[in-house]
């Protein structure tokens, strides 16, 4: 039975572990420093893991055996605050399984799935939880192919603008919303329109 090191917060990794534990041996952790025998695992999988993994650790695994479960439709939404980004600067929403590279969220894509557009009354928090589950389900649904390394990969498109929002940027934008993370999708769209208006004004008028 293949052994998998699954890195990320408990609330995200345990859902996946429970779904695939009959097919593989899963070890969940939220910190790499807890481990001194990483090479014993067959796969390294990250899910909501917000720390950079060094190249020498990644190199212990073949590319198709070191994967990230990412809750956006890459190349859109790299980094932090990805759900907010995808609504403020509207892009295709969905989830991606990609190869882990030293550069965050840049690796080749193994599989992707598009989500239905959100309901306008859904809050950002509700959308985020639905989105995280969507990403986990994408991994679970493709788990047999992932174990067998059957999935072909493709390089991320460089055609689109994919700015990286820092945590500070995300928090600044969230601070404008009336109920921060409990604001509705409709309110985020209103903020998006306000930003679009300001951007057009700034291009053509002087303050």
């Amino acid at each position, binding site marked *: 039975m293949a052994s998998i090191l699954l890195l990320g917060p408990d609330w995200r990794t345990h859902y996946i572990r429970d779904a695939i534990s009959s097919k593989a041996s899963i070890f969940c952790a939220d910190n790499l420093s807890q481990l001194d025998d990483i090479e014993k695992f067959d796969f390294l999988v990250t899910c909501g893991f917000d720390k950079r993994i060094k190249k020498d650790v990644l190199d212990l695994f073949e590319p198709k055996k070191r994967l990230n479960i990412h809750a956006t*439709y890459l190349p*859109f939404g790299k980094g932090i605050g990805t759900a907010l980004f*995808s609504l*403020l*600067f*509207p*892009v*295709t*929403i969905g989830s991606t399984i990609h190869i882990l590279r030293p550069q965050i969220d840049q690796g080749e894509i193994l599989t992707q799935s*598009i989500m239905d*557009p959100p309901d*306008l009354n859904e809050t950002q928090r509700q959308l985020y939880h639905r989105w995280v589950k969507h990403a986990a389900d994408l991994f679970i649904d493709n788990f047999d192919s992932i174990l067998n390394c059957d999935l072909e990969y493709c390089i991320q498109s460089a055609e*689109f*603008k994919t*700015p990286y*929002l820092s945590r500070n*940027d995300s928090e*600044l*934008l969230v*601070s*404008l*919303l*009336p109920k921060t993370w409990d604001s509705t*999708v*409709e*309110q985020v*769209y*209103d*903020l*998006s*329109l*306000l*930003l*679009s*208006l*300001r*951007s*057009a*004004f*700034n*291009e*053509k*008028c*002087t*303050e």
Partner: protein
Amino acid sequence: MTFTFTKDKYNNCHKASAINSQIDQIIKIMTDSINERQPIESIILDATIWHDQTRVARLCVYTSNSNFYCLISPRLEFAFSYNLTEMLTNVINYIRQEFSLTTQQNVFILAHDFSQGDGRLAPIFSSIKAI
């Protein structure tokens, strides 16, 4: 509460709070490589939009081919103190009255279209023209 408009340039001389310029730096990355800055020299109206007793936005208007184009700079700290659609409707009505427009003359509000891929913005105001 109603929206009112003043042409008093004095109001525009007051700097809005710093959060606006901070966020302008964030949104700039979405347009910088596409568009060079193209200031308009033929602004025919430079006004302040008030909601109750608060200056919620600055409005500039120019004309081209007998249509009227509005550029609006909302102050983001007041973004959710009013209804955005209502504000935009008031802007259009104000322009129509101020310049005595005929039904053949259109009023457009200009906004950058940030969407990419299959991204879809929520129902957008019908008179907003994406640039």
